[in-house]
């Protein structure tokens, strides 16, 4: 078996085309920016019938050139994708083989985009996202990793090798190295992105890493939002002593350098004392509280409906809560056979500390928004109707604060991803052979200047996911401000 090159036979003629397309795009973008600074905007002329016409000048031609160059670049990239999907294994090189491995993700992405764009007028803010290029690019990047994680974690599709298994002789080998013993040119015959310092497949570890991030980051962000909202609403609404105490506590946590907090909280010694488990008991109570108060404040005048809704919901949530809190090998262990699942010890500590670090910021945002919104007329109207305080907070103020909160939610998932990477980078919490991106970067950085690929691959993966989340947040902000 020969090692694969980056783009294979396809690249012989497509690589120069890509270089030309990229150069054209660069020149056109620069020209467009300069034209925007120097040249006047295209003049508007009024036609005799009252309509407006744009008189084209040099600047509009430059802009058209930029659009053309961008379309050309996209076309070339699509050719690479098509080549990878259509040509036999190996002819399109590493890139082609990777494109082929990601086939389920492409199908899922294409379906998502087709359906969303088809029905975008009926989908509210989510539909409007597809009016902004930045938002679409961000959404595409995010969904790429979400689908990858789902296909890897649930169906075991994309990875070519076991992320933890080593193949002898492939230690630190460059991308495209053939696996000894594989004869047929088929998926799995090569380490597509090379081997790491323990001779494991870098590509498979990267895609498995996405599953860890996608499992932890959004859930941890949801929990910090539950905590932040449940505390921030009353603090902003009532003010006074409650606000002073809660704000002091949140400032206390915010004044802690995050890394110091991690080093203090996420150590085996602390886990031994059970402090993270006790913190989990406290922090994970908030979602139950939140849902309980949310439902009760809405249906309290209709006790029958309230009971039918609340009892099953709260029962399920409490059971989940108790299973989550009760962990084998920690001081809190009481569920016995009723325990639904056990989160691995390290993950729970990581989860708790990430929630703990994030919730004060959410608290501050919610508090500020509440203080702003509580002066509005519709809040006064609800108060005059005699609605309960929690109803006003949860059903009048919170829905009207959703715009900034949704944007911050996207940003915060990205930040949580960065925090998870930081923890992995310092080898805190997660087991050392875990394929998550931070740990992989950490294990790859010792030999970085000789073999850069084991650290570079997860670094770029993490970068693309966080970039996608930030672009998505930017697109959402832009579109929600247009109303």
């Amino acid at each position, binding site marked *: 078996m020969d090692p694969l090159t980056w783009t294979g036979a396809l690249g012989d003629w497509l690589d120069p085309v890509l270089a030309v397309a990229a150069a054209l795009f660069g020149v056109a*973008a620069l020209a*467009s*920016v300069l034209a*925007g*600074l120097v040249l006047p905007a295209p003049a508007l002329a009024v036609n005799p019938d009252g309509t407006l016409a744009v008189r084209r000048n040099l600047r509009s031609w430059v*802009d058209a050139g930029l659009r053309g160059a961008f379309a050309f670049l996209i076309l070339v990239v699509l050719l690479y994708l098509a080549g990878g999907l259509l040509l036999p294994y190996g002819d399109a090189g590493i890139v082609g083989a990777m494109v082929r491995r990601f086939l389920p993700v492409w199908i899922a992405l294409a379906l998502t985009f087709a359906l969303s764009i088809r029905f975008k007028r009926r989908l509210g803010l989510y539909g409007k996202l597809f009016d902004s290029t*930045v938002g679409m690019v961000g959404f595409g990047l995010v969904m790429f990793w979400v689908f990858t994680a789902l296909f890897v974690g649930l169906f075991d599709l994309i990875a070519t090798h076991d992320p933890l298994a080593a193949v002898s002789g492939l230690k630190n080998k460059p991308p495209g190295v053939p696996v000894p013993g594989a004869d047929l040119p088929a998926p799995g015959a090569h380490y597509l992105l090379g081997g790491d310092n323990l001779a494991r497949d870098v590509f498979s570890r990267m895609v498995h890493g996405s599953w860890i991030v996608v499992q932890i980051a959004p859930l941890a962000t949801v929990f910090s939002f539950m905590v932040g909202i449940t505390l921030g609403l009353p603090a902003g609404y009532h003010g006074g002593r409650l606000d002073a105490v809660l704000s*002091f506590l949140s*400032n*206390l946590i*915010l*004044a*802690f*350098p*995050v*890394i*110091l907090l991690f*080093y*203090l*909280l996420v*150590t*085996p*010694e*602390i886990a*031994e*004392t059970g*402090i993270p488990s006790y913190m989990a008991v406290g922090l994970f109570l908030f979602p139950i509280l939140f849902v309980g108060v949310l439902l009760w404040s809405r249906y309290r005048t209709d006790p029958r409906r309230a009971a039918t809704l609340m009892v099953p919901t709260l029962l399920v949530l409490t059971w989940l809560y108790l299973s989550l809190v009760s962990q084998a090998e920690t001081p809190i262990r009481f569920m016995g056979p009723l325990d639904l699942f056990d989160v691995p010890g390290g993950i729970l500590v990581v989860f708790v500390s990430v929630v703990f670090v994030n919730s004060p910021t959410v608290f501050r945002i919610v508090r500020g928004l509440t203080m702003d919104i509580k002066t509005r007329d519709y809040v006064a109207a609800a108060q005059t109707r005699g609605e309960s305080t929690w109803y006003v907070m949860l059903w009048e103020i919170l829905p009207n604060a959703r715009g900034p909160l949704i944007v911050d939610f996207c940003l915060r998932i*990205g930040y949580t991803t*960065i925090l998870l*990477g*930081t923890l992995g*980078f*310092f080898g805190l919490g997660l087991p050392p052979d875990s394929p998550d991106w*931070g740990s992989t*970067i950490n294990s*790859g*950085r010792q030999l*970085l*200047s*000789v*073999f*850069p*690929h084991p*650290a*570079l691959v997860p*670094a*770029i993966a*993490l*970068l693309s996911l*966080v*970039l996608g*989340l*930030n*672009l998505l947040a*930017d697109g959402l902000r832009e579109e929600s401000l247009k109303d």
Partner: protein
Amino acid sequence: MLRFVVSRVVMMAVTALCLTFIVFALTNLPPNLEKLAKFEAGSRISDEEVASWLARNGYDRPTLLRYGEWLGVLPGWTRADPDTGEVTGRCLSREQSAAGAAEAEADGALRPPRFCGILQGDWGESTVFKVPVLDVVGRSLALTGKLMFWVMVVMVPGALLLGVLAGMREGSRLDRGLSTVSIATTATPEYVSGVVFIAIFTSSAVGLRWFNGSATSAMDDATFQNFTLPVLTIALYGMGYIARMTRASMTEVMTAQYIRTARLKGVSFPQVVLRHALRNALIAPFTVIMLQFPWLLNGVVIVEALFNYKGFGWTLVEAAGNNDIELLLGVSVVSVIVVLVTQLISDIGYAYLNPRIRLS
């Protein structure tokens, strides 16, 4: 104004007390102390020996009491061993305890101080480096100060330039291009950009060997070659955030009435930006820059670990990784104080710069 400053300072002191107590409690948990005993007295000692070692060294008393002694507001403990009669104490050095408390009492020169906590300047001794904590912290702070200085020199003008250029014409190509650049830098944590930089600029695989992948030599002699990458790595992550704040503040100012008036009077666009808009647009970024310090501290820890630059962040990692309680406490105190003081400066500075707050 004075009342405002005083209340902020009092608040800051209370916060500092709370935070240092939390750190003290978390670093002095029983498992940590047991590990310390085993580190100091041999790893194979039995549980009774651990307990007696802890008792002999004063670690067996309530945390709050020991926090007071560590802080220097309660008198340091002394203890006479019931078997040997040897006297040990927090404020007694080794020679003094060997000489015995009685002689120390008789000889005035050897009399130990009653209080010896961080308020008296006694920060204890690092168990890993075997030197006083104050020396380690001081040396590493100086090194990190050098790093931070250059980070600020690169980051602040770069970020302000990016933000002002992007914000002066909202929605233009330039704005969209620069905004995307700043989003991209905020999405690049230090451990990613550092790894990418090292891979591109120092590795033999790519072949551009422009810079050094390690900044160890920069501790004594910082040159363009060995200091560029660490400085750039930290600066890049903070830059995008400040740039976005500057852009937001700039676009807000550019839509203000007085800017329109100036434009209508016929002032040229560059003049409007430089003379009229810039000064008002820079109030908000000032606060943001000060509040970046806690974040920069994060970056410092990552970058110093990545580039092996033995500054403050590197010391924090070493202390935490090796269960060096006294050193970790010292590092925490310094970082907490740095964060709180910058918050204070940012609050006061904002109030000073913004007349609407100053006068009310």
